[in-house]
Structures are given as structure tokens and as C-alpha cells.
């Protein structure tokens, strides 16, 4: 018969794995995609050496190793679940007394790290560092002679601090906390000695790597912004030490006693409930939504973007830019762009900011338009802006693509070679290498062959203030580049520049529209009437429905209907955008 307590413990651990897997795999998957894109894990000795040589390098290396699997959110979620369970089991193993009812206590460090991982800038290195430290403490615990154990701890503490970084302090802390001291003075002496060893190691790390002391002490691979101290991993470390300390005084509740399960149940409710509340508080579903848009744009899942927007309008420039790109790629921009929330030209081609996220989404639009140099620049700049100085697999791929398409074979080759050392991008890189060797093969790839033909060729300077001219020149160079034309039209409409719209509108005559797109009809009708012309004399083929609605709109304006009425009555029209946004 299986021991009942073993079933309970296994059940709770499995619940942690399943909970984390469901959360990161289904509720929060795009945070994992987001994480993966800001690193490039290469299976080369020099990459391993470069990462591992730094303080906390081993934890960082392993953290990056796990993060590469986040490209598949399901796999990444399972890995996170297993790592958190590993930490929980290690914590349980490190408790001095282990009555069943105290089992939920061992979940506290894992929950703290789960909360840490809800932050999009948290790095896996912290989770790995805590796991390695606890596993090391677990190994040291096997030494029966307390004095030998202390000496071993003292000797191996610098090693752990080098391999795991500052969070490696969990190793001596937990060991010291769970020891049974016979004399207070010896406890104080060992704590002081350990503190000296820790301080000495930090000083040595600073000296060897010439890093600011604050960064060494707070840890350098736990958070994407090196100057920010990630709090939750430290909560996990302190909680580990506190639990190890408290566990010395835990008493078992007699078997068969109702109290045994009542206390267990109460702890499960308190710790589980706190964990749920904590994770809920630390997670940011707004960012998750934004990351979803970026991920779908990156992976060209245009219909998912449109479906998502139909359920809930995006409202920040980055997600609106992804939506407009998706509308253009699915042939719906000209007709339906004003059915969705629009925040001006910033939602079409956002202005460049020195940041590692928004330029990536913007570069997608430039790439698909055929502004390959600009797409390359935005990608390059985003990569350079990654705060912890890592490089990005996503960026390397785009830099290789744009270099290949603009004819810079040597640079493309350089990026492709690096990508060939990765797991996620290897297949693409091998294919791209074949294309470099045999460029005619590119013709069989619809995206690349189209971009090869449609890319901007005539040289001029990029100017955010003259985007309409840039788009117009791009269209002039490739008169089949429908997306360039529709972006030009959209740029004019979003900037409410109707004269420019009217001026540019005819250049798209050869694009084969079977009707004037809805947004254009509304804009043309508006422009015509604003010039003081009667609607009946409009020279373009505007549908009767649009004309009638325009006439009604004019009547409503003249009747001075309230703004809320107008917004509601003309929702989804260009006029609502023109007058009320």
C-alpha cells in the first residue's frame, strides 16, 4: 500500500508543476516568447566560456540554455514547472525536521521565483542560481560530521558564489540556518567567518572583472536591467534560510490526529492562496497582450492579430502598428482600418525610440514594406539596446535576411554562421546558407523573391517628418508594391492630410482594386464636401451608401449633435476619426 503522506506530497508537487505549466503555457505564453528573443544561445565552446567566466556565469549559462526552449511556450512552461518543483523538493530535503503538515512551507521559495518570472525582464539565471545553491546545500547536508560539513561549506562557498553569483549565498545561509549549534559563540564565529568569505569573494569578483561592487553584490544575471535589483529571488533565498531555520523546531502531529490534516490544509490554503494572489499581482496581462501582437507579427500569424483585435481593440502604438501591418498583409487595411482604434501615424510606423522592444515591431512593418535598410537599422538598434548586452536570435535572423536581400553576402554569412550554432534557428540558417551559395533558390521563396523585387533602390535619406514622400518614392520604384501605396494613403489619412491624400490617391489606379476601398471613399467624400462642393458632383465612384451616410453626417454636424452621439453613430468611419480623435 502506498504511503498516504507520499501521495499527498507527490500530489502537491505535481500540482506545482501542472499549475506553472498551465500558467506559463496558456495564460502567459508570450512572456516566454518575449524572453527567448532577447538572447541567442549558441552551442560553442567560446560562447560557453564567455558566459561562464563572469560571476554567476554557470547559472546564467544554464538559464540561457533553458530560455532557448521558450520559443515553444509549452515546452518552456514545462521546464519552468520542473525547475520550480526541483527547488521545492530541494527545500523540503533541506528542512531539518519534516513533518507532513509542514510540506507546503517548502513551496515558498518556488512561489517567490514564480512571481519573479512574471516580470518580463526577469532572467532564468536567478531561478537556476537558487536551484543550484539548494542542491549544493543538499549535497553538503549528507556530510555527517558537523565540523567537516562547516569546513566544506566554507571552502565551497566562493565556488558557489562564482558559479551562481550573489544568490549563491543561499548555500551557506541555508546550511548555517539548519545546523544545531551547541554553543552560541561558535554559531556567531561561523557566521562571521562565512560573511568574511562571502565579502572576500565579492571583492575578488569585482577586482577580476572590474565591475561596480553594487552589481556584484546584487547579482548581474538575474534581471535584464543590470542596475535594478530583482527582489523576488532574494525573497526566495531569505525564505529558504528562514524555513531551514524554523524547521529545526517543527514537531510532527500524531498520526491519525485530525489536527495533522487540518494544519496541512490550512497551510495549503494560506500558501497556495498567497501564491495565487502574488502571481496574479505580479503578472501583467496588458504586456502579455502587447507581446502577443509582436509575436504574431514576428511569426507572420496575421489572422490571429486581426481576430484578437476584433475581440479587443489594441490601443498602444506598438500593438496598433502590428494590427495595421496584419490588415495590410491580409488586404484589409484600405477598407477596414478605421473599424479599429487608431492612434495617429504613431500606430502605423511608430517613431524610433532608443529601446529594445518597440523598434522590433516597427522594423517588421519596414521589412514587409521593402525598406530593408531601415528594417535593418531598427533591428540593429533594438539589439544594441538590450540592457544586459545580450544579442538576439530574432535580430540575428532579421539582420541576416536583410543583408542577404540587399546583397551584402559577407555580413549575411556572418550572422548565418552564428545561427547555425543555435537550436531554434539552425534549420533556417542551414537553408539560408544554401541560398547564399545558390541565390537563384531565393526565387522559390515568395516572401524573399517579392522583397528582392520590391525593396527600395533609389537612395534618399530616411526622414520621419517626410514619411509620405518616402512611401511615395518606394511605390514609384515598384508600382506593384500595394502595401507601400496603402501605407502612404493610411499615413495621409491618419495625419488628416486630405489634400495630400487626394493628390496621392490616383497613383494607385493600376493596383487592380475592384472598388474604391471604404476608408478612401469616406475620405474622398469628406474632402469633396469640405471644399464646398455638393456631394452629387463628386468625381470619384463613391457608393450610394457612403454618399447617403455622408449627407446624414453633415446634417448631424449641422444639428450640433453631441460628440458621444456622433462617435456612436459613425463608429468605424473615417469621419469619426477625422473629427473626434
Amino acid at each position: 500500500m502506498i504511503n498516504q503522506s507520499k501521495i499527498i506530497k507527490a500530489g502537491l508537487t505535481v500540482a506545482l508543476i501542472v499549475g506553472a505549466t498551465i500558467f506559463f503555457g496558456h495564460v502567459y505564453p508570450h512572456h516566454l516568447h518575449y524572453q527567448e528573443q532577447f538572447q541567442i544561445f549558441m552551442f560553442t565552446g567560446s560562447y560557453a566560456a564567455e558566459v561562464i567566466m563572469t560571476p554567476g556565469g554557470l547559472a546564467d549559462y544554464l538559464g540561457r540554455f533553458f530560455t532557448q526552449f521558450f520559443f515553444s511556450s509549452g515546452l518552456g512552461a514545462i521546464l519552468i514547472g520542473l525547475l520550480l518543483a526541483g527547488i521545492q523538493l530541494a527545500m523540503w530535503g533541506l528542512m531539518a525536521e519534516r513533518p507532513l503538515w509542514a510540506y507546503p512551507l517548502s513551496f515558498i521559495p518556488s512561489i517567490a521565483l514564480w512571481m519573479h518570472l512574471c516580470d518580463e525582464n526577469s532572467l532564468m539565471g536567478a531561478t537556476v542560481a537558487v536551484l543550484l545553491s539548494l542542491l549544493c546545500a543538499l549535497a553538503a547536508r549528507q556530510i555527517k560530521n558537523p565540523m567537516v560539513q562547516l569546513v566544506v561549506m566554507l571552502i565551497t562557498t566562493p565556488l558557489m558564489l562564482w558559479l551562481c553569483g550573489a544568490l549563491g549565498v543561499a548555500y551557506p545561509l541555508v546550511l548555517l540556518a539548519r545546523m544545531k549549534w551547541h554553543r552560541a559563540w561558535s554559531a556567531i564565529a561561523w557566521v562571521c567567518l562565512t560573511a568574511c568569505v562571502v565579502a572576500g569573494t565579492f571583492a575578488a569578483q569585482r577586482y577580476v572583472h572590474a565591475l561596480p561592487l553594487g552589481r556584484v553584490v546584487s547579482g548581474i544575471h538575474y534581471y535584464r536591467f543590470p542596475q535594478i535589483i530583482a527582489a523576488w529571488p532574494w525573497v526566495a533565498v531569505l525564505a529558504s534560510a528562514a524555513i531551514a531555520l524554523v524547521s529545526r523546531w517543527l514537531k510532527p502531529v500524531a498520526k491519525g490526529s485530525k489536527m495533522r490534516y487540518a494544519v496541512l490544509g490550512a497551510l495549503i490554503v494560506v500558501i497556495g492562496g498567497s501564491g495565487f494572489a502574488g502571481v496574479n499581482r505580479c503578472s501583467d496581462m496588458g504586456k502579455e497582450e502587447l507581446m502577443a501582437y509582436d509575436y504574431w507579427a514576428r511569426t507572420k500569424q496575421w489572422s490571429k492579430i486581426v481576430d484578437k483585435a476584433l475581440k479587443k481593440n489594441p490601443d498602444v502604438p506598438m500593438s496598433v502598428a502590428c494590427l495595421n501591418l496584419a490588415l495590410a498583409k491580409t488586404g484589409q487595411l484600405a477598407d477596414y482600418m478605421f473599424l479599429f482604434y487608431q492612434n495617429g501615424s504613431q500606430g502605423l510606423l511608430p517613431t524610433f525610440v532608443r529601446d529594445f522592444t518597440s523598434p522590433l515591431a516597427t522594423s517588421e512593418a519596414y521589412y514587409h514594406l521593402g525598406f530593408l535598410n531601415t528594417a535593418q537599422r531598427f533591428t540593429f538598434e533594438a539589439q544594441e539596446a538590450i540592457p544586459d548586452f545580450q544579442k538576439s536570435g530574432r535580430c540575428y535572423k532579421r539582420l541576416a535576411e536583410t543583408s542577404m536581400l540587399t546583397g551584402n553576402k559577407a555580413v549575411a554569412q556572418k550572422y548565418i554562421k552564428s545561427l547555425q550554432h543555435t537550436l531554434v534557428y539552425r534549420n533556417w540558417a542551414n537553408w539560408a546558407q544554401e541560398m547564399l551559395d545558390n541565390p537563384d533558390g531565393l526565387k522559390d521563396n515568395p516572401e524573399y523573391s517579392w522583397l528582392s523585387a520590391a525593396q527600395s533602390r533609389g537612395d534618399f535619406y530616411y526622414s520621419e517628418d517626410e514619411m509620405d514622400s518616402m512611401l511615395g518614392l518606394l511605390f514609384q520604384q515598384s508600382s506593384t508594391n500595394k502595401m507601400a501605396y496603402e501605407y502612404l494613403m493610411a499615413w495621409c489619412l491618419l495625419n488628416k492630410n486630405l489634400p495630400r491624400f487626394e493628390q496621392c490617391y490616383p497613383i494607385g489606379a493600376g493596383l487592380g482594386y475592384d472598388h474604391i476601398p471604404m476608408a478612401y471613399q469616406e475620405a474622398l467624400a469628406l474632402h469633396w464636401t469640405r471644399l464646398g462642393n455638393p456631394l452629387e458632383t463628386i468625381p470619384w465612384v463613391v457608393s450610394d451608401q457612403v454618399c447617403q451616410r455622408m449627407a446624414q453626417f453633415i446634417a448631424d454636424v449641422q444639428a450640433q449633435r453631441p460628440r458621444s452621439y456622433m462617435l456612436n453613430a459613425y463608429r468605424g468611419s473615417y469621419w469619426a476619426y477625422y473629427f473626434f480623435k
Partner: protein
Amino acid sequence: MHLKTCFDDHKGFSRKLSGGFIGAFLAMLAGCTAETSQNASEVAAMPGIWPDYIGVTVPRNIAPLNFNMADSALAMDVSIQGADGTVIRSQGSEASGISIRQWHKLLDQNSGDSVMVTVAAKYADGWRQYRPFPIYVSHDSIDYGLTYRLIAPGYEVYSKMGIYERNLSNYDEKAILENTQVDGCMNCHAYNQCDPDWYSMHVRGSHGATLLRKDGEMAVYDTSTDATLGLCVYPYWHPSGRYIAYSTNNTRQGFHISGKKRLEVFDYASDVQAYDTETGQLLAPAILKRDSVWETFPAFSPDGASLYFCAAAPQEIPQGLDQVRYDLLKISFDPATGRFGQEIDTVIHASAMGKSVSWPKPSFDGKHLAYTLSDYGNFSIWHPESDIHILDLATGESKPMALANSEDADSYHNWSSNSRWMVIGSRRDDGWHTRAYICHVDDEGNASKPFLLPQENPRRYYDQQYRSYNIPEFVKRPVDLDKFEAERILTSPDRIKMKVKGREE
């Protein structure tokens, strides 16, 4: 890698030995470089190697010029023979793996002569031996090392970067200062005629300042003043060590939508001035800060009696950017009084030729002046057409350094302290990443074929090096910069404020 190659190559051979494992192991060690091209087929052509070191001239104290086969050879066997018959030999699966000690000994023995390199490469169908090629060994030695900034060749944003020092006799590289230690963009570093006891290093960003070290003393300065355009950049030391010439530039960037050129860096205004380290005054004469002229890139002559600089007539930017053309000018300077002359001479009237001069660098022996010539503008590293030219200061004749230049951008350059070696920033390898090439320059200003800065395994190193070599400068000895002291003074708010002469109040 060397042993690994031997092991791989000798697996079959060792299995034939009947003496078991020990015998096989000893045989493997003893015959480490024994597997060669005894039955190699001979090829009449030179080997296809990368970097191309065929026929280059090297100083006798340079690190071994390791190379890789440009194709997918499985292994290589390299023999280097001196004029006296001495041969050194190495094998490698990827790179030539030349021993540093043996290389230096061989070069010392053949100084002023040449060594012949014979390459055999292993392929699936066996070994092939190529025609030997020479490497010429100059009598002229090279300085201890090279310093440079490593930074990704980007646009406005930068990731990890820093100033690094490389020992030219081996492959050791160390960071002088990195932005992991002090947040900021660091560049514009200059030494006084390769003497690292005197340096000026500019840091931009939240801890922005100019780090000056004069005769061993380090201090940080705020170089901006109300009377100048902004921060002092592009430093050049007066040979006396008393003055440093700077320019102040109102710089912007422009981005090409298509074509090979990606970026333009240009000025809306610029002036030239000199800082007197003894009086703490910035000398900014009106003749060097005219609104009608953009002055930049100052460089003192080796005798200290004049200052070279580039100057262009202002244009509307960006429309007129391709009309901005800089001439090379000169003005006299009296080091005793710190006074500039009243007349400016035109040394190279490049604008009349439809060209533009940047980065004037006089040789320290006073015989030549090297400069970059491009079609327009002054940030020539982003111009594929830019080439290095050399001016004979005695005759006034100017010519391109034909052997040293390439099809792509060859731009920033600097002289060794003995004026016999020049380092060039060149994008010849892939058109984007700047690499340091070194060439010999003889008394007549003729450059030899340049060689790429050697690495232990150049293919692997440069494939994985995504940063450019920026502002390479020779140094006579290691740079003695206390990183922690530099961090302390840069991160403190205290700065010595530069004051313009005559406006000290």
C-alpha cells in the same frame, strides 16, 4: 586544437602499433607533427588562405600570423623556412597553430629578409601541397601594442563596448575601460606620440567627462563651455605634452534608405581649439571658430610649430551633404605663448578636386602626413570609396597608399612611434565591420601590403567578433590606467571645468 589534430590524424597509425595503449600514446606524442603531406599532390598555385598574408611585410616582433584555409580543408600542415634553412612547423585542423616562441626566434633570425611559408592542406582525397609564399620581415620593429575601441558598427545605440589594449607580440587583449564598469560611450582616446602616460579619453553619457592623464596624473574634465560649441572631441596632443588640440562638433546622423552606404555622420557646425594643461585655459582664437567655415580634426605637427586641421564651407544639411568637402589646412602655433598665427595655409585643396579630406595624421618623424580621402563629408569609415593617401611634407606631393587600400572603406589610421608602421581601420572583409590592418611605410612613403591584426585562430575569432575596431592607436608600453580610480572619479560629480582664455570669470 594542435594536439587534437595530432590525435585525430594519428588514430589510424596508432592502432597499427602492437605495443598497446602506451606505445600508441607515446607514438602519438612523438609524431605530433609527423603526419604530413609526404604523398601530397603538388599544386602550382598559392594556397587560398584567410587572412591573406601572402607577401606581407611584418615587424620582427609581431605575433605569429596564424591563418586558416579559405576552403573547407580538413587539416593543414605549415612549414616556415628562414633564409638560413631553419624550419618551424605546425599543424592544425582549423588554424595554422604556429608556436609564438618559435615564430619570434625565426623572425629575429631573418630580420631584414624573408621567410617562406609552405602550406599543405588535407582534403577527403588526400593532401595537397601549394606553392610556397614569402612573408617579408622588416628591420623596423613595431610598438608594444595597439589600443582601440570595440563597438558594434551601429547607428545611435550601443551595447557592450570599451577601450581595449592588445599586445602585438602575442594575442593578449585586456580591457582598459568598459561600459560595464562606467555607464557611457567611450571613445576619442589619444596618446602623446604613442606614449600612454599622456592620454585624453572622452566618455559620453550620464557620467560624461574627459579623462586626462598627463605625466601619470589622472583627472576628469568638463570640456563644455558657454563660448564653444560643446564637448571637446577628436583630441591630438602637442608633442610637448602641454597642449591638446580638440574640435567641438555639432554632430548629427542621417540614414540611407537603400544602397551600400547605411549611415552618414555630419556636422551642422564645428570649431577647433587647444587646451593648455598648464594654465587650464582653452585657447579658442576667432580664426579657428568662424561661422563661415566648419573646422575639425586638428593635429599638431611633430615639431609642434603648426596645427593641421580640416575645413569645409557650410552647406544646407542634409540636402547639401554630398557637397560638403573638407580641405586640409595649416596654421602656425607658438608653443611658448600658446598663440596661433593669423594666416591659414591650404595644404590640400581637396574640394577643388571634388574630394574631401579627413583624419590628417602627420608621421612623428615629420616626413609625411597620412589622410583619408573620400567623395564628401568627414565620417569616411561609412564611405566605401574612402582611401588612405600620403603627403610628402618636403615636396608637397600626395599619392594614394595603393597597396594598403582596398575596394571598401579604408579610413582611420595612425602611425607607430618610429613612423614605420601604420594601422588602418578597414572594412575590406565584409563591408560593415572595421578591422585593424597594419602596413609598413618606407622612407618614401610607400606602403606595403597590409596584414590583418593576427589572432590565434583568425577565422573563429573574426567570425565571432561583431564589434568594430575603432580609433586604433599604437602604444609604446601597456596603458597604466587604474580602472577603479577611473570609475571613482568618473562616477563622482566633480569635474574640472575648462575655461576659455579671456573668459575665465
